C-alpha cells in the first residue's frame, strides 16, 4: 500500500486519487469503490450521488482542487468531505498554499487537507504552516528523510494556520 506523511508520521494510505482521463466526462465516468478523491468537476456534477456514497464507511469521499480551482467552490460542502486535496502541478506553482489557508481560515475546514502532485521535502514546512496536514509526496521522495522538513525553523514571523499569532504579538507578551 502506498505511504503518505500525515500529521508528522509515515502512514499507509488507501485513498485513490481519481483523475478524468481523456474522453471521460464528469457526469458519466464510472468511479471505483473505496476511499476516493475526485476532481472538483466530478463533485460539482454529481454532488447528491457522491454525498450519499460518502456516508458509507467503506467509501469515504474527498475532493481535490487543482491549483487554479479556489476553495470557494466547496464552501457549502466541506462538512461532507473527509479529505480535500490541493494539487501542486509543479512545486513552483504556489496557488494551493492560498487554497489551503482559505480552507482553514475562511471556511473553517477541519478535515484532512492533503498536498498532491509535486510535493517535496523542501516545501513541507510552508505547506504545514498553511494548514496542510497530509502529504502525498512525489514518488522519488524519501519519506523518512522528508520528515526532517517539518523542523526547518523553530520560529516564524507571520501569522498562519499553525501559529495564528504573528511573532510580534508574541514578542510583545
Amino acid at each position, binding site marked *: 500500500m502506498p505511504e503518505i506523511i500525515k500529521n508528522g508520521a509515515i502512514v499507509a494510505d488507501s485513498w485513490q486519487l481519481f483523475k478524468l482521463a481523456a474522453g471521460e466526462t464528469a457526469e458519466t465516468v464510472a468511479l471505483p469503490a473505496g476511499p476516493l478523491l475526485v476532481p472538483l468537476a466530478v463533485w460539482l456534477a454529481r454532488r447528491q450521488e457522491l454525498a450519499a456514497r460518502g456516508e458509507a464507511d467503506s467509501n469515504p469521499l474527498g475532493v481535490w482542487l487543482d491549483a487554479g480551482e479556489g476553495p470557494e467552490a466547496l464552501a457549502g460542502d466541506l462538512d461532507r468531505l473527509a479529505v480535500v486535496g490541493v494539487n501542486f502541478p509543479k512545486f513552483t506553482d504556489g496557488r494551493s498554499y492560498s487554497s489551503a489557508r482559505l480552507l482553514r481560515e475562511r471556511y473553517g475546514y477541519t478535515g484532512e487537507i492533503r498536498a498532491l502532485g509535486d510535493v517535496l521535502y523542501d516545501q513541507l514546512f*510552508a505547506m504545514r504552516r498553511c494548514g496542510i496536514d497530509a502529504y502525498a509526496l512525489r514518488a522519488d521522495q524519501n519519506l523518512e528523510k522528508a520528515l526532517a522538513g517539518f523542523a526547518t525553523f523553530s520560529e516564524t514571523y507571520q501569522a498562519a494556520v499553525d501559529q*495564528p499569532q504573528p511573532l510580534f504579538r508574541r514578542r510583545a507578551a
Partner: protein
Amino acid sequence: MYRYDSTDQQIIDERVAQYRDQMARHLAGELSGDDLRPLRLQNGLYIQRHGPMHRIAVPYGMLSSAQLRKLAEISRRYDRGFGHFTTRHNMQFNWPKFEETPEILAELATVQMHAVQTSGNCVRNVTTDHFAGVAPDELADPRPYCEIIRQWSTFHPEFAFLPRKFKIAVNGAASDRAVIRAHDIGLEIVRDEAGSIGFKVFVGGGLGRTPILGQVAREFLPRRHLLSYIEAVLRVYNRYGRRDNAYKARIKILVQALGIEEFKRQVEAEWAHLEDGPATLTDTEFARVAAHFAPPAYESLPAADAGFAARQNDDKAFANWVKRNVHAHKVPGYAAVTLSLKKTGAAPGDITDTQMCAAADLADRYSFGELRVSHEQNLLLVDVKQSDLYTVWQIARAQDLATPNIGLLTDMICCPGGDLCSLANARSLPIAEAVQTKFDDLDYLHDIGDISLNISGCMNSCGHHHVSNIGILGVDKNNEEWYQITLGGQQGNDATIGKVIGPSFTAEEVPAVIGALIDVYIELRTPSERFIDTLQRVGSEPFKARAYAGRDRRKPAVAANDAQPTPAKVANA
C-alpha cells in the same frame, strides 16, 4: 539600525543550516538541479555566464561598518576582492565557488546578514530612500516599516512561489527617492487630515520589458493595516496572476488586465476578511522596531560651520565635491555624503575590499558606524559633521571614493551586462566606460549639470534605463550587440518612462550619439534649465535629428522602429 534579537538570529542561523543541507543533498545526488534551482535562487545564488553569482541582501540599504568589513572579508576569501552594488540594495559577488556558498551565508549570519529572497518568485528585498532618517524633506522615517515588511515577508509560507518576483519600496519624504512607482507595491508615507500616519499605496509598477508606472490602490491606508493589506494584494496576485507566460506574470500585467478599479475591488474584498486580524500592526511592535532607528547622539552645532565654508573657498576640488557629493541634513551642522562608486574605468557600483574597509573606517570615525547603499549604486555616510567633511573628502579621495559626479552624466546606473550576466543581450560595462571616458572633463560635466543616464544590457531593465533622461538598452540583432536610446525618462515624483528615439546604434556610435544629445541641450538650454527641462520644452525632435545626422545607414530590414529586439531571457537563471 535594526539589531537582531535571539529569535531573529535563530531564524537566520536555521536558514543557513537549511541551505547547507540542500546543497549537500544536491551534491550527493539526492536533490536534482531543477529541484534545487528555485531554492538556491531564494538564497541569492544564480548560475551566470562564468559560473555562480551570489546576491547578498542589504535590507533597505542599511549597513553597519562591521557588516561592510565582513563583505570585504568575504570578497577576499571567496571572491576576487571586490563586490558589486546593484540597484536594489544588494551586493553581488561574481566569482564565488558553488560549493562554498553555504560558508558565505554562514559568515554573513555572524553579522546579521543574509541572502534571503534576493532572487526567486517571492517578495524581494524591500528598498527605500538612502537619506531615510536624515532628509530635511522627510515626513516620517520609512525604515521601521521596511523592517516590519522584511520580517513579514521572510519565509512567508503562502507567498514563496508567486507567479513572478515581487518588489516593494517605501518612501517617507516629499521627494520620492525610492522610485516607488516602478515597484509592484510602492508605499508613500502620508498623513491623513487628523495627522495620523498611513500610506498611499501604488500597485502594478515595474520596469522590465513592459515598463508601467504603479497606479493608486489606496489614497490612505492607516499604518496598522499595512501588513494585512499587503497580504490581501499578494493573495489576489498569487491566486490570479498569470503563470502561463513568465513575461506576463508580474502583478502589473494582472492590474492592467483587470483594470485598476476591478483589481482594487478584488483586493478590498479579500482584505475585508483580513482587516483587524492578527496581522494588524500593534503600536507596541511599531515602537519596538522604530526604537532601533532612533537618531544617533548628534552634537549641538551651528547650522553652518565656518571652517567648512573657508575650505570650500580655498580648495576648488573640495568645493566641486561638496557641490555634488554633499547633501543637506535635517540636523544643523551635519551633512550626508555620497562616496561615489562611479569613477571612470571602474564598473558602476563596483567596490574593492580595500575600499570597503576604508569606507567602514570612515563610518566608524565620522558617521556613527553606519552606511547606506543607494539604488543609484553608490555608498553613503549620512551623519557627517560639516567640520569633518574636509578630512572625509581627503581620505575618500585617496581611496578613489570621491569622484565629484553625483547626479551628473557619469553617475550612471548600469547593470553588469553581457560581461557577466547570462541574461544580457549585450554588454553594458564597455558602453558605460566609453561614455565616462568621453565625458571625463570635470568642468564640462559640471557645466552639463543634473542629468541621468542609465544602461541596461537587456530588457529586464536592471539598469533602470526606462526612468533616466537618457536610457541605453542593449539589444541583440543577429548575434550583434546594438544599443537603443530612450529619451525623457525620469525618476522622482514626476516619474516618467522614456521613449525610444529610433533605430539602435552600434557600440562604437554610442559615445558620439550621447555627445550629440548633450550638444543639442547645451545649444538650446536657458540658463536655468536642466537637460530634462530643455527636452520637455523643445521636444525630442532636435535631439533625434542630431543623433541620426550622418548616420543614415539604416537598412530597410531594421528601419522600422526596432523596438522588438530578441526576447529577453527571463531572469532567475
